[in-house]
């Protein structure tokens, strides 16, 4: 009995080594995203990763330690940091070489990943502080940053002489965005009429919109979930207030258009800032990526139609970011292998889905530069780049109907 107990102890000690990162010629990439709570975001991120992995696996990944294929595993964080931390621990235990995250789990889980020398790639949330070169050396991001979006919004709206009501909701996304707006507009307080925090759960935001109107606002800038933007639009337009409304990348979410489907004219003119889909080389690269994406998963239907009856689809722009992250990761694996992956990511680039070079460096773990934010305006349930911004005016309109 005693011998058996000792044998068990020895066997238990032998099993304490953690997950093998290179089991059976496969490298695991974990996708931690809110599949159950925000299906659009979760699916977009995971599909971008899976599409890149399927392409890479055709020839495999020749690393200094041998040739591997990539396996992708989904973990649902349900927008809960606690759940995300648990996912990250499970992913490490499963032997993941990298984790692709929407951003939910990064504050809670980066340390666990760093201890295991596993890089995290954020491909949705642009929140400041999520990426920090000094304190979070294993965290990278390919997505527009809140800082870039806020400064570009300030750069675009201030010269128009507007008095803005800066509105953000009480979600983490909204609060982080509100902080970025405060910083961006700090040198031009004369352009801000008021700042409001609105509850994301409320069904009617009329009182808050009325407060903004009484504060002398001549434009509304909303940073929040798509449903919050929709409620602000409804509150303003139903009160007969034809005020210009500006928003953030969440305006791309189909939820906004679905909630305004019965009053499409209310959406017309809403302008939002988001990451550019095309590079200077033209839209061909993006269309090629979109075509591959649709062949694999079908078009992302928004669920609304134009006045002419065409079905509206959402371009897979955020899928592009997770797709690009996997391609940069693959280059790092090829050159530096699994063991040096966290540092290796700083030294490589890959051709992005839109034709741009994607990569990081020793001073910057952001793969989308602040300049790469453009402005788009809704018309007839689709959006097109604006003409009164130097960058946006150079960009083509991506087709959004089928």
């Amino acid at each position, binding site marked *: 009995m*005693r*011998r058996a107990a*000792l044998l068990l*102890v*020895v066997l238990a*000690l032998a099993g304490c080594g953690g997950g093998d990162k290179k089991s059976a010629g496969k490298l695991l990439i974990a996708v931690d995203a809110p599949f159950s709570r925000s299906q659009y975001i979760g699916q977009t991120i995971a599909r971008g990763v899976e599409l890149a992995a399927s392409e890479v696996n055709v020839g495999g990944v020749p690393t200094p330690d041998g040739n591997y294929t990539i396996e992708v595993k989904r973990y649902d964080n349900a927008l809960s940091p606690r759940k995300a931390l648990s996912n990250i621990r499970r992913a490490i235990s499963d032997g993941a070489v990298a984790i692709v995250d929407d951003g939910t789990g990064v504050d809670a889980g980066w340390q666990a990943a*760093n*201890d295991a*020398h596993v890089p995290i790639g954020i491909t949705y949330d642009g929140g400041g502080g999520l990426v920090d070169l000094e304190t979070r050396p294993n965290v990278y991001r390919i997505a527009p940053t809140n800082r870039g979006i806020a400064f570009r919004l300030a750069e675009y709206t201030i010269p128009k002489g507007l008095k803005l009501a800066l509105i953000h909701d009480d979600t983490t996304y909204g609060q982080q965005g509100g902080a970025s707006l405060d910083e961006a507009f700090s040198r031009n307080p004369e352009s801000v009429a008021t700042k409001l925090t609105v509850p994301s759960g409320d069904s009617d935001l009329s009182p808050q919109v009325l407060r903004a109107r009484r504060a002398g606002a001549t434009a509304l800038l909303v940073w929040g979930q798509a449903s919050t933007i929709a409620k602000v639009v409804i509150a303003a337009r139903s009160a007969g207030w034809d005020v210009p409304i500006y928003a953030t990348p969440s305006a791309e979410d189909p939820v906004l258009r679905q909630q305004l489907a019965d009053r499409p004219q209310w959406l017309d003119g809403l302008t939002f800032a988001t990451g550019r889909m095309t*590079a*200077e080389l033209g839209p061909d690269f993006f269309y090629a990526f979109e075509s591959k994406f649709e062949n694999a998963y079908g078009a992302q239907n928004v669920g609304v139609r134009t006045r002419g009856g065409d079905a509206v689809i959402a371009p897979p722009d955020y899928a592009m970011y997770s797709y690009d992250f996997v391609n940069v990761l693959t280059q790092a694996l090829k050159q530096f292998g699994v063991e040096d992956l966290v540092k290796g990511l*700083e*030294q490589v*680039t890959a051709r992005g889905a839109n034709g*741009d*070079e994607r*990569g*990081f*460096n*020793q*001073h*910057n773990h952001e793969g989308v*530069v*602040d*300049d*790469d934010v453009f402005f788009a305006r809704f018309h007839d349930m689709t959006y097109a780049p604006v003409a009164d911004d*130097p*960058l946006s005016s*150079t960009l083509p309109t991506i087709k959004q109907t089928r």
Partner: protein
Amino acid sequence: MTRTGRLLGFCVAACAFAPAASAAGGTPILLPSVRTTLTPGPPLTAANVSGEVLYPPGMMSDQKVLVGIDAAGKPVSLHVVQRLELPKLGDYSFTVPGPISDVEAAPGSDSQPGLRRDAILWSGFSAGKKTLAARATLRPGAAASRLPLRVSIARGGDTLVVRGENVTTARAPVLVGPLSLTEAAKALRQTHRYLALGAAAPDIYATVRATPLSRSERIVAPLDVQGQVGDERFHYVLGDGRPLRFERRVAHARKDAKVRLVVTPAPPERLLQTQPRNAERALSLVARARLTVARELQFHNFLANPNPTGRSTAAYVYETAKRSAAPKAVTPSHDSDSSWSTFLAVGLGIVGAGTLVVLWANS
């Protein structure tokens, strides 16, 4: 085959295939380009730096190379402040290579530079006008050999002796053969007129009666040196028919007197204004003059301007500095932690296994 050798081959090939080859009186040949890069020399390079090169047209570079020298004149620190001006709308994405250990945005920069191993990374969008300014720290051991001036400082009693030597010399193949004096004077005039265009200067042809040969010659970029030791100021031009060295004795120099030398590559004004008098040597005179201009332009690109025809200017500032302490060997803390913890785990494992074996044997 070296780059200069290939250049000569190209020039000779141009002789053979020039469109007006059969024109009465001679064959047009391409004179050496002012974009010729001679070795050794700048711009600084690095291994394994690749990536996209994309910039709006007309990008210009201006840089100040800050050389910290010790009490003997040896470079002990090297920083470069490079300002890239983007005058037009468009995307940009490129790296500036070199033995770069660190980089930060310099005052006036509209964007933040990134750091790759041995490269500065710039990426973004210019809305019509943008300044990209970086202050890069270079590893002096690797970069000092490309500096244009070698400085030595000695002290004899209360006299400080500052010596400087122009070390921009490189060998290059110079075209040799007869050329009419009129053609030579015209080529020199055109080269002088195009100096303001820098590397964007157009190529120049000359008509020769016989296919030229080549001869390897030393080419030196003239240097304009403005110096200051304490309150005493001095000025030298090294090269362009003048000596390549200077020696300045500063009497009654204070022990802590700082030496400051501002070195600027200068065009070979004397050479370009030489009146050709011998037709047999006229072609080599013109070729030498154009290669000297090329060498001068080369030293205006200590850090490369990714736009090869963009205007580039550089000034090298040598200044006495305290020798910095040798940097400590840096080991990433988590690595050392993990190796210690591995040692500990292995040690404990061995002890534990031994104990288990003893227990087992005694049970």
